């Protein structure tokens, strides 16, 4: 079994999805942690410092390339799997029902992922292409905190961010425990605990992110 055979097999592909997905799950913790610095409510001072570090530190930018690679791998692989799965049933059912207990979002990982991709494009445009890179070249006079406030107080963007986060929530709810199943971890004793952690993580991270636009919109943050 060569590496190529492994990663082109159905289970290998899923393994890759789970591996990259799990990496992204960890990344989200870092992302949320840094962004949460806005809640110091110090006019973005702490947050801007952290953002400055993240955008100017060479090592951080190097890691960012890795992050992009993982994102791209996850996205491309996901889309390819979606295509393959659709091809596996060229003629669909006229009528389709699911028994109770089948989570709707588990069936829509592809769609949720696509929403997230669109969201990501917007998100990168807002906070990476312009702001973060601007900071890289122009230094601390760029105030990322204010740019964030600008975006989040715009009703259209506010709504889109909320929709994006909702997609993320369901994508994570399915993705977190899915990853463990793909790694082969399904145990009568431990899986319920893992599932609990997964739900806690997904909800917590999404609420934390959602609080950012909400706080700006509600005027809780200056």
């Amino acid at each position, binding site marked *: 079994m060569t590496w190529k055979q492994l990663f082109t097999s159905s289970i290998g592909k899923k393994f890759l999805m789970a591996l990259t997905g799990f990496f992204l799950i960890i990344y989200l913790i870092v992302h949320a942690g840094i962004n949460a610095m806005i809640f110091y409510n110090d006019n973005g001072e702490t947050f801007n410092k952290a953002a400055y570090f993240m955008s100017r530190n060479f090592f951080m930018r190097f890691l960012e390339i890795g992050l992009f690679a993982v994102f791209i791998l996850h996205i491309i692989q996901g889309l390819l799997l979606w295509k393959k799965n659709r091809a596996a049933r060229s003629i669909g059912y006229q009528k389709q029902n699911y028994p109770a207990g089948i989570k709707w979002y588990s069936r829509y990982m592809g769609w949720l992922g696509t929403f997230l991709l669109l969201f990501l494009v917007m998100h990168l445009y807002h906070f990476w292409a312009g702001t973060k890179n601007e900071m890289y070249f122009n230094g601390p006079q760029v105030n990322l905190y204010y740019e964030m406030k600008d975006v989040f107080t715009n009703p259209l963007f506010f709504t889109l961010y909320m929709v994006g986060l909702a997609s993320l929530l369901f994508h994570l709810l399915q993705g977190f425990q899915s990853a463990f199943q793909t*790694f082969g971890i399904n145990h009568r004793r431990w899986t319920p605990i893992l599932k609990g952690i997964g739900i806690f993580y997904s909800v917590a991270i999404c609420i934390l992110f959602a609080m950012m636009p909400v706080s700006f919109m509600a005027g809780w943050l200056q």
Partner: protein
Amino acid sequence: MEHYNMNLTLKVWKQKNATSKGKFETYEVTNISSEMSFLEMFDVLNERLIDEGKEPITFDHDCREGICGACSMYVDGRAHGPWQKNTVCQLHMRAYKDGDTIVVEPWRSGAFPVIKDLMVDRRAFDRIIEAGGFISVNTGNAVDANSLPVDRAKSEEAFNAAACIGCGACVAACPNGSAMLFVSAKVSQLALLPQGEPERHTRVLNMVTQMDKEGFGNCGNIYNCEAECPKGISVENIARMNREYLGASLSSDI
């Protein structure tokens, strides 16, 4: 149990052969007893169609007691119909009431081409077993059966996996058309038993390779396979197969 009779409307997929295009036909059936099985209701309809000089509906069925795995109908959007842990031959008409409309379709999967009407070709499953779903022991080689004690709990788990009837409901019900539950049930059975140990690695690699070749979809951990499996085969087996596969491929020499 109270018995009653009912009239029903059936929308059934009709397709002359593998190459022709199929379509739904609507049939009215009357005076169906609640005591009949779903397939007996089809028998009644077929008898009438023959009598009227029309083509009866072709479907796979054999033992009619839920064990051979031949019957395979997608009934109202559910593999084997509305009852859980059940094959369509064991579905009884008391599940319906007078005036119901029922949509009946064949298993839909690129790897299970339609032969005629509701009958599909499931030889892909045989080919997956051929690839490694066995223990290579020629007749006469065996040692005394009790010379090899087997952990009772593992043996029971192996039995639970081995209870698979190979009907293909898992593939039919999976939104991705994946055959992981079927393949993992056999991989699990043999991985759980000490007899399966010598071929443990090659077995899982070969069976998964064959599964991929057949054109089944990929598992999305939706678990509709488990929910619709007439024998309640657990998705724990899929996790075990993933584990076996990763272990086997990562420890392989090349």
